[in-house]
Each structure stands twice: as structure tokens, then as C-alpha cells.
């Protein structure tokens, strides 16, 4: 038997934890936080393993996970096979099954603290503390038998420290049963130090850290798991001078605003996972560094009215609303953009003037825009597309907020759209590409301008039409919004929706007194995205073949797996809320085929 061909104390227990967490009952515990320093880089706790059960039962994730290539390859790993054999052997020696043993030994949860690269502390909480010592003895006995069989030295040493029996194994770690829990580290010295701290708790610890305490205080009763990270410490793991240098990130900066600084400079990040029969929720909270608070990047944070609910039109795949006051940003651009970016914006300033009748870009153009920027990605009427493109792309509509009092600006936007089509045709003429024919139509009393490609008269049989036939760029001014869309069909639907708003599209209210105001809201539909995948399945299979070299059968398998994953989700919602000193991310998934409430 190849089992235990080399000492692997730590790897022996990890699968037990994993398996055990699936079938267990909740027991809260955070003793470890009292022994760890306040700047511990990362701590993750599986607080209620049983709470993950709906993922298997209601969400039916197991068969999908099994089909994932990465999981398949991991399951075929011989090391994992050895560990499985070890678990079976220990369970058999205790007259139980591996799953039952896992529940007994780790069913009350586990906490992992990462203190540095390759430095960790793991606490595993059993449902049956009385079974810990016998299981440990049985495992060690097996290991020693195997080592003897292979004429290898017994590198497992047992010693006492602070009244606790510690078992250490050469180079790979140490473990001990402490307060009816299993404590595992990858260093004997660290385990001894933790036992010293247990005997003489330090004055300052992670448990006493205000931000950590805030996270713990915010945990929902039904949170299955939570984590807390000191991002400054985590970043230091992979610190390199190149990574520290800020790049020219104009696009990212204008879109992401101060969130970009949070990724680069934020100090703490905490979050919790809540799993229910029909929904899954992730809530995260990130602290804003002091130098970002009250600085020029404050212009990226809404102070009164935040992002409205995303617009929903029929067959929407994804819809988002972003709050951005570009005019205010323009005023302070020199304080947060580099010289290269500013040079580019100066060029944009003079170039954009040509499209908007010589208006000043900052005040005349950006100043005439509102702060609710909405984007909708929705299916087109694919059946109506003539000719039918080889790949069907959904339409994208950007709904640009316009100052209703600046009537002339709306006209300028319509004119700019037509100029753009003309310029595109000039470029097309130079590159021998087909032109867009400009036309207009009335939709709900609104004049919509659109460009369309002329279908070829003598298409070759069996030759799919170009993907460009997905495009029919359109623009229309609807009240205080300018709709700019890649597809006339989607533009029409958006215009109708804006002319006849549903109650959920009500304007956002003043949230000045709210703790945090939403800056970005996203809603996505699993079935609609799945429909897009299904429509383009053959194309996706072909692309998979050419990108990965898979056979068509294997490629089809990967696309079907994607369809299965999408089929689980009914809707996904995400929102980012900004407060002066923190940013919150809420992510919510609703399960498909859940019973109607």
C-alpha cells in the first residue's frame, strides 16, 4: 500500500474538515481571534457547515461540480486518493463510516487563519469531542505502521507544552487537542506560542480590533461563513515594485472611481455568506483609507441621490445603473489623473467640441449630462434579422442622462450621432467595408435615428452572414435621456420602456441620511443569459475547439456545463454602496425553479 509514503500530517485532516462541514450542526466559536495578533492577514470561518446543505439539496450543485474539469482532475489526483484511503481506514478502526466520522470530528465548523505565505493556523471544531483523541490515535497508528512497513523513520513526535499534548511531524506541522478542538499549524513553534497566548492572553488581539469586532457584530444569525482580511498585509505577500506603481488607468478610474484606490490601498475587507434554500447572499464591507476620505475622489460618491434601480425591458440579460457626476469629476480631474491621461482628455475636449457645436466640454457637454447612467443588454429579435448572422449578439443600449432644461443639447446629441455614422462610413469606404445606411423612424412619438447594413443581394448558399449584421446603431432623445443602442430593436424597446415607465423604474429618492448610498446596481437574468448561450451553442462549441483544441464532443460538454450553471440561477443582483469611510458590496442570487412564495 502506498498510503502515507511520506509524512503528511496536515493533509490527513483537511479532507475530514471538508467532508465534515457538509453534514453538521452549528456551533459558534471564535477563541482563535483572542490569540491572534490584530494584523492577522486573513481569517476565514465556516461557522455553520450545516447551512451549506441547501447548496447540495436545493441548488443541486454536486453533479455540476463533479463535471468541472478542475474538480475532475483533482478527484483523479493520487494524493487525494491516498487521503481518502486514510480516512476510510481511520473510520473503519472506529467502527464508523467516513462521512459519519467527518461529521463527528468537524461538524461544528472550522476556522483558518493565514498568517503569511505557507503559515497557517487551523481550528477544527467537532460535534463529538470525545471522538477526537481516538481518531487522532488511530490515524497516528496507521501512519506509523505504514512508515515501518516502508522502513522509513518515524518522524512523528509527541511532547507536552502548557499541559497540552502536541504531536509534531517533521517539517510539515503540528497538532494538538485544545479545549476539545483540534488545533493544527504548520509549525511546532507557532503551536507552542499559541498555547502560551492561550495561557496568558495578550492585551491586544484580533478579537479586540474595532473593525474585526464590527464585522463580527454585523454577522447574520444564519451566516454560513465569514472572512476578514487585512488587505495591506495580504498585498505585502506578493509585494513587488512593479505592482506598487500606478499605471495609466484613465478608463478604469473614470468607471471605478475611488473603488480602484480601495483595491490598491484599502486596509480591511470583511464579508459573510448566507445560504438559503432559494437564495444565496454575499455581503462584503471594505474600509476606505483615510487619505481617500474627503479627498478629490469624493466626487465619485453620491451624497444625496444614489443609483436608481436598473431598468428592465423584456428579455434583459443584464441591466445596470451607475451614478456618476462627470461634470464634477471634470472640475477636479487634475487632482486624480496623471499627465498622460490629462493630455488625452485635453484632446477629447477639443475633439468633442466639433460634435457639439463648439460647446465647452466640461460645462457645455458634461455639465448638461445627469448622473444616472444606465446600460441594458437585451436580446434582439433574432428571427427578424436578415440576413441571419453566424453569431447572434444581444443588443446593448446606453441610456445617457440629459439635463431636461438644456433642450439644445438634446438636438446636439442627435446630430452628433448622425455625424458619427457619417464618419464611420468614411472609415468604411477607406477600408472597403460596407457602409451603414442612415434612416429614421417614429417610436411612441419619438424620432429614432438608425444605421443599418444593406443585406447582400446574392448571398452564397450555406455561408453564414457576417457578424456585423448584429449591428444597427441607433440613437433617440427620450425626455431627459438619450438612448444610444447597438441594435434598433433594443433601442425601440428601451424607448417604449422610458415612455411608459413601470413602478419599479421610479426615480431614486433622497438618501442623504442613509448610512451608505448605492453607486452601482446590477441585475442579471440566468435564463436570458442561458438563452443566449443556447442560441449560439454551435458557435461557442467551435470557438472552444479553436481556443482549447478540444474535440467537438468535449467542447460541447463544456458549453453544456455552462448552461447547467446558468440554469441554476434565476436572477443575480449586485450593488455597491458608498459611505464616507466604507464601501459595501451586496451580491444576491435567486435560485431558478424555486417554489413561488
Amino acid at each position: 500500500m502506498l498510503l502515507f509514503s511520506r509524512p503528511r500530517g496536515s493533509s490527513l485532516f483537511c479532507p475530514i474538515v471538508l467532508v465534515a462541514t457538509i453534514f453538521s450542526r452549528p456551533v459558534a466559536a471564535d477563541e482563535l481571534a483572542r490569540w491572534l495578533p490584530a494584523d492577522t492577514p486573513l481569517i476565514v470561518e465556516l461557522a455553520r457547515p450545516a447551512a451549506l446543505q441547501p447548496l447540495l439539496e436545493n441548488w443541486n450543485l454536486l453533479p455540476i461540480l463533479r463535471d468541472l474539469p478542475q474538480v475532475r482532475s483533482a478527484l483523479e489526483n493520487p494524493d487525494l486518493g491516498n487521503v481518502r484511503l486514510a480516512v476510510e481506514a481511520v473510520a473503519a478502526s472506529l467502527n464508523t463510516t467516513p462521512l459519519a466520522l467527518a461529521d463527528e470530528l468537524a461538524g461544528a465548523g472550522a476556522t483558518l487563519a493565514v498568517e503569511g505565505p505557507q503559515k497557517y493556523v487551523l481550528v477544527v471544531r467537532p460535534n463529538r469531542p470525545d471522538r477526537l483523541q481516538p481518531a487522532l490515535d488511530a490515524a497516528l497508528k496507521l501512519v506509523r505502521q505504514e512508515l515501518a512497513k516502508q522502513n522509513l523513520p518515524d518522524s512523528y513526535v509527541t511532547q507536552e507544552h502548557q499541559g497540552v499534548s502536541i504531536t509534531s511531524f517533521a517539517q510539515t506541522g503540528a497538532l494538538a487537542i485544545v479545549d476539545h478542538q483540534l488545533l493544527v499549524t504548520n509549525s511546532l513553534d507557532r503551536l507552542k506560542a499559541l498555547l502560551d497566548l492561550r495561557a496568558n492572553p495578550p492585551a491586544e488581539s484580533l478579537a479586540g480590533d474595532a473593525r474585526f469586532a464590527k464585522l463580527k457584530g454585523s454577522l447574520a444569525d444564519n451566516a454560513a461563513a465569514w472572512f476578514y482580511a487585512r488587505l495591506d498585509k495580504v498585498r505585502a505577500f506578493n509585494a513587488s515594485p512593479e505592482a506598487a506603481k500606478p499605471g495609466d488607468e484613465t478608463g478604469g478610474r473614470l468607471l471605478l472611481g475611488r473603488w480602484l484606490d480601495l483595491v490598491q490601498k484599502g486596509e480591511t475587507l470583511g464579508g459573510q455568506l448566507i445560504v438559503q434554500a432559494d437564495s444565496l447572499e454575499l455581503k462584503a464591507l471594505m474600509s476606505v483609507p483615510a487619505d481617500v476620505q474627503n479627498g478629490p475622489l469624493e466626487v465619485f460618491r453620491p451624497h444625496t441621490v444614489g443609483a436608481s434601480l436598473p431598468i428592465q425591458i423584456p428579455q434583459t440579460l443584464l441591466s445596470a445603473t451607475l451614478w456618476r457626476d462627470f461634470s464634477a469629476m471634470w472640475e477636479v480631474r487634475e487632482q486624480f489623473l496623471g499627465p498622460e491621461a490629462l493630455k488625452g482628455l485635453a484632446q477629447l475636449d477639443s475633439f468633442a467640441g466639433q460634435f457639439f457645436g463648439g460647446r465647452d466640454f466640461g460645462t457645455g457637454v458634461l455639465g448638461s449630462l445627469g448622473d444616472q447612467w444606465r446600460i441594458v443588454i437585451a436580446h434582439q429579435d433574432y428571427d427578424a434579422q436578415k440576413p441571419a448572422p453566424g453569431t447572434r449578439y444581444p443588443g446593448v443600449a446606453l441610456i445617457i442622462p440629459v439635463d431636461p432644461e438644456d433642450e439644445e443639447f438634446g438636438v446636439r446629441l442627435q446630430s452628433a450621432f448622425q455625424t458619427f455614422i457619417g464618419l464611420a462610413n468614411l472609415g468604411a469606404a477607406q477600408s472597403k467595408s460596407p457602409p451603414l445606411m442612415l434612416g429614421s423612424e417614429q417610436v411612441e412619438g419619438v424620432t429614432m435615428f438608425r444605421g443599418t447594413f444593406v443585406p447582400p443581394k446574392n448571398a452564397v448558399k450555406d455561408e453564414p452572414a457576417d457578424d456585423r449584421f448584429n449591428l444597427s446603431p441607433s440613437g433617440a432623445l427620450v425626455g431627459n435621456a438619450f438612448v444610444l443602442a447597438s441594435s434598433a430593436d433594443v433601442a425601440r424597446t428601451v424607448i417604449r420602456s422610458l415612455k411608459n415607465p413601470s413602478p419599479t423604474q421610479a426615480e431614486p429618492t433622497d438618501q442623504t441620511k442613509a448610512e451608505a448610498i448605492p453607486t452601482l446596481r446590477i441585475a442579471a437574468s440566468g435564463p436570458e443569459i442561458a438563452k443566449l448561450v443556447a442560441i449560439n451553442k454551435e458557435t461557442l462549441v467551435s470557438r472552444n475547439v479553436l481556443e482549447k483544441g478540444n474535440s467537438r464532443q468535449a467542447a460541447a460538454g463544456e458549453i453544456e456545463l455552462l448552461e447547467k450553471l446558468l440554469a441554476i440561477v434565476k436572477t443575480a443582483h449586485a450593488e455597491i454602496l458608498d459611505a464616507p469611510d466604507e464601501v459595501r458590496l451586496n451580491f444576491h442570487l435567486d435560485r431558478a425553479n424555486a417554489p413561488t412564495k
Partner: protein
Amino acid sequence: MRSVRRREDAVAAWAPYAPSPEQPWNLARVAHLHRRAGFQAPWSVLERDLAEGPEAAIDRLIHGEPTALDGQPAAQFERTMDLLSAESAASGSLSRLQSAWIYRMILTPNPLRERMTRFWHGHFATSNTKVNNLKLIHRQSALFRSHGMGDFRELLSEVGRDPAMLIFLDSPTNRKAHPNENYAREVMELFSLGRGNYSEQDVKEAARAFTGRFVQGDRFREVAAQHDGEIKQILGKEGVLNGETVVGILVDQPACARFLAHKLYRLFISEFDDPDPALLEPVASNLRAANYRIQTTVEMILRSRLFHDNASQGRKLRSPVELAVGTVRALEILDPCPSPETLAAACTRMGEALYAPPNVAGWPGGTEWINTASSLERANLLLGLLSKSDDKLGRRLNPEALAKRYSFANPGDTRNFYTQLLVEGPFQDGLRSAVERQAQPDSQEDDRVRFDISLILTAPEYQLT
């Protein structure tokens, strides 16, 4: 120059090869046949063709195998690949269209057809860089595939009406009042006769004959009003000549068969020799006698003594596509195969961007394939295929398992197996000794085999074919 003193020598050179004690049908000849007439072949194919003899092996190359390397019946495979290429062209992505062809070449049941398609792509070189329309490029490639082994007269005629070619050589500006000589010049110099076999006046007159050929809505269209219907005189023929009659005049020139014979000699025999015209005459005669049916002449070459002569082995440099596709086929890295997109990108970096030849003369080939940068790219590609961490190219080959499948189990056996599989021929013994000298016996078996293969693949000898 490979000189031939007597006409009898040339006739003897192209006489059918028959195995003899001096020139046996051995593994080196089987491997040579597949390297030149297809790409490389898997070991099972080499063994089968060794057992069944040259006639059967060449027949299979001419007519194709019944199944592709992915197990699909040949006809079904071709349909699937046609669809894949059409989809890729419609997407507007050149890299996707390139990779669709690479993928087809790797798995094809008809490697000779793909080789001929690639040959005509280089002969009638047309670049999407100027055409800027992948559908037209794809249609042209399909034309080379369907006509590549057929009647050259018909192929030349079709090329003269091919929208991609017309755009590439400025035919839409070739009008009655202002003839553009681009196509007329290249059809004589590069497509049919070669320099020195026509006059400047012939080019001017031919340009008039080709006037009025346009591309409208991606289709060929003749506009009578823009065609010069007056009398012309081309290569001694006079009359109201148009594009079609010019094709007939060109193909009827004695120089046309000689020109094509030289190109086929470079394709199948050697690109390092400048053959004596007398040596090529039997090939040219065969072309004329066969009414320019290319398959007849290709068969004659592949069955000839000269083709199977020891001296013909290793007389060509592998092009980047031959290197990539051949290595993947020989090592049977097929399910999954290395990422076709990554292979196509590597070929582009090595100097062979499919559908984008450097100019109308195509790729010069031969030693032009090798320079400092391309040598490095070649090594990177081949080592990528052996890599255990490269997601795009590596992590697919199990060299121990492949050798064991063919009953080569111990270290000496596997080294023999891979030397025979990859370089069977004149360099085999020297290269095997070199590999043995550098062997790493203390490594784990898998690493040892990979190291051996890496020595073979990166050896200068492996670049030859």
C-alpha cells in the same frame, strides 16, 4: 545544380520506384513519403504503410484515409471543417480563420489535399491584409481545396474570376480606358510562365484582355462596358481576346508546364537544388499529356525513383505550419490537441501567417524560414508542446504512454521510438547518438523521455524534411 547529362538519366529518375535490396521500402522511406506528401504521420500509419508497400501508401495519400484522426468519417469531417471555416470567416477574425485551417490540417484524413491547398495558397498568394474580407479569402481557400488536384487550366481560369484575387491585384481599377497591368503581369510571371517567357507588350495586351472584371457585392461580375473588345496580340495569338482566352494561350505555352514542373519539384523533391531543365522535362511532358490534371503529375512524382532516392531526403526546410502540424500529428497530441489559435499565432511569429503571405510572390521558403528570431520561436513552440505547465500547448502529451502503446517500454526503446518517429532518415543515427550522450538517466522516467524528445525536436536536423 542537380545536373542531368542525358535525356535517359531524366527518364530514369522519374521512372516508377520499385523496392530493391539497394533501395528497400523501409521506415525511412515511409516517413519521408508522409513528411513530403502530407505532414508527419502517427506511428501506427508508418507501421501500416511499411507493411503494405509503397503503392498502397501512395494510393491512400492520393485518395485520403477513410477516417480523420479524430475518428470522424472523412466526408463528415470535411463538412464539419467547412462549416467551422465558414463560421470563422463570418466572425471577421483572421486568427480564428487561421486556426480553423490549422485544426483541419492536424486532423485531416487527406493530408496531401491540405498540402496542395497550402501550395496553391502560396502560388496564388493573396493576403487579407489588402483584401480585408475574410469571406472572400475563405472562398478562395475552398477553391484551392476543391481544384488543387484537378485541372490547372480550370484552376487558373477560376483564380482569374476569384473576388479575393481580383481585389488583391487591383482588377476593379482595370478598365477599358485605363488598363491596370497588375493581374496580367502576375498571371504570367508568378502564376503560369515565369520571367523571360513573355514580353512587356504581352503584359499590356493581356491587361486589356482582363479589363471589365469587377467585384460587386462580394461576387465576380463582368462589365461589358468596361471591357476592351478590340483586337489584341498576346504571345503570338491575335484576335478579340478576353480573360478566358488568355488563360488558354498561357497554358498552351511550353513554358507553362516547365514552370509548374519546377514548382512541383520544389514542393516534393528539393528546394535546395536548382534542377537541370532536362531533369524537369519529363514532369512537364506529363503535365501536358495529362491535360494539366495536377493529380496525375503529383502521382508520377510520388511514385518516382527520384522521390524515393536517399539523396532526396532532408532536402527541404520545414515551413512553420509543417513544423507545428507535423509534430502534433506525429506525437498524436489529438484529444485535446494544442490550442489551434496558439499554434496559428506561433506560425505567424515564425513567418507563416496563413491568409497573409508577405507579397504576391508568396513565401520564399527554404532557408528564408530560418533566422535568429524564428529559430527561437520554433524552439519555444516545440518545447511548449512538451511542457507540463503550458495550458495552451502543453499538458496534453504523455510521451511514456505513447511509446508504451507501441510496445517501446524501456529507456533505450523509447529513445529509439522517438528518434524513428520524428527523424527517421539520414540524420537518425547521428541524432540518436547525440541524444544518448546528453541523456539524463537520473531523472524520473517521464522527465527523461521529455528531455530526450526535446533534444530531438530542437536539433537542427529536425528542421529538415
